[in-house]
């Protein structure tokens, strides 16, 4: 009954509370770090993939850019198209075969695997985000002499970031939950604690109940914070006038009274006005 469940949970909490909390902390650290690194990978791939090349560029530049696009394509397809749990096994146990070194640090492997996985998804999100920006923004930046990196860094990516914020939120929430597959290489996240505790005391359901609640709280808090961030990125909804605009009447029409003078009187001396 319900009372039984509550007492089981409280006894579990009393004995293993700190272990559960440690699990939550590990999960959060891994999810946050990997999402951030994944975003950086994604944005980097996004910039590299969109470097334009024209007819006049030399052949080496064209080949290099083509090659970069192919490499990113392969990276995205491989890491998006295989299960993360296998990627973890693959990298953790595969390293000694290829490089003769074993990653003994489970943290490093976990962060690498989840970051690289997130990066593959983010690369596509960022590409979509960049494609959704009006071509006029690129042209406006080019027209004042910005190069590709400057255009991307100062104009396009800030707008892309705002547009793909929901995607980043998605990825983060997926990471909070899916880092649980890292138990396969022995990472002690929130879910690993469940396996450990329930195996020791045979209280599967009460522990699972706590896990469910815990994950839900983690993701709800994340959703809330992401919404706040989106709002902040959207900027202020109003602005303050420094003083009044002399060229526009408050009604929004143009015909200001001639005797009031225009701000261009000084420079307008030579110009005699439109002939009718």
């Amino acid at each position, binding site marked *: 009954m319900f009372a039984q469940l509550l007492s089981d949970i409280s006894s579990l909490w009393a004995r293993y509370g700190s272990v559960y909390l440690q699990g939550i902390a590990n999960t959060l650290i891994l999810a946050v770090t990997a999402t951030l690194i994944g975003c950086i990978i994604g944005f980097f791939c996004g910039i590299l993939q969109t470097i334009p090349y024209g007819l006049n560029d030399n052949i080496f530049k064209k080949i290099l850019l083509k090659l970069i696009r192919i490499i990113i394509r392969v990276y995205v397809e491989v890491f998006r198209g295989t299960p993360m749990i296998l990627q973890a096994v693959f990298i953790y146990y595969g390293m000694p075969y290829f490089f003769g070194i074993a990653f003994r640090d489970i943290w490093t492997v976990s962060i690498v695997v989840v970051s690289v996985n997130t990066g593959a998804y983010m690369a596509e999100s960022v590409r979509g985000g960049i494609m959704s920006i009006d071509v006029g923004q690129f042209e406006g930046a080019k027209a004042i*002499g910005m*190069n590709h990196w400057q255009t991307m860094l100062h104009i396009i990516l800030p707008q892309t970031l705002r547009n793909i914020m929901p995607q980043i939120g998605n990825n983060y929430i997926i990471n909070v939950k899916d880092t649980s597959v890292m138990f396969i290489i022995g990472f002690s996240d929130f879910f690993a604690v469940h396996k450990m505790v329930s195996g020791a005391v045979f209280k599967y359901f009460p522990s699972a109940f706590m896990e469910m609640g815990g994950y839900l709280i983690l993701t709800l808090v994340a959703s809330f914070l992401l919404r706040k961030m989106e709002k902040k990125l959207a900027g202020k909804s109003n*602005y303050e006038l*420094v003083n*009044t605009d002399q060229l526009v009447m408050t009604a929004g029409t143009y015909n200001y009274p001639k005797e009031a003078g225009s701000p261009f009187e000084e420079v307008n001396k030579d110009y005699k006005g439109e002939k009718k």
Partner: protein
Amino acid sequence: MSERILEIRHLSKAFGSHAVLKDIDFTVDRGDVTSIIGASGSGKSTLLRCINLLETPTTGEIFFHGKDVTKEKASAYRAKVGMVFQNFNLFSNLSVLDNCMIGQQKVSRIPKEEAKKRALYYLNKVGMAPYINARPNQISGGQKQRVAIARALAMEPEVLLFDEPTSALDPEMVGEVLDVMKSLAADRMTMLVVTHEMAFARDVSTHVVYMADGIIEEQGKPEKIFTDPESPSTRSFLKRILNE
């Protein structure tokens, strides 16, 4: 004779098999206000975009102070040639003030304080100084275009290209933008304006270029073109557009 800024020689542009510009030749001297007129699809905008290298010319050369820019790095050249677009193309993530500062800071490497001073000077010139804190989506079309002009001016370009600057505006906002352009013309700013505003072409510009089907059909002083055009094509175009 005044200093030659731009010289376009044998410029052609084709999109696939469709030739938009055919062997264009013309020059821009310092202080010229050149209006490019012509029917839609005659290649006016493409010509302007080729001059700013937003489109790569298929053949031909563009000399800027005697140097062929089609062979050089486009970004350095573009910083000296301002462009005002039909759709404003203000950076929507930046405030009005930042729109006018970012190019100076990142491209010309001007320190922040100096860049701000310059941006405010030009924003004041176009009457947009009160709106420095606004974002582009919070101001009207005419105001956006005035900010776009200030953004281009803040780079202190040698030539300013206008690609149909009033075509996307509500009729009531055309005046405020044209006024700014007139004041620039009075300041002897070198301008190249693709426009459908015949009054501007006739009264403000020093040269008029009439384009039809990808070639320059006729060019000359506005008085000559508007009162006594040589080509029958020019005559019928002007008749059509002025009698509307």
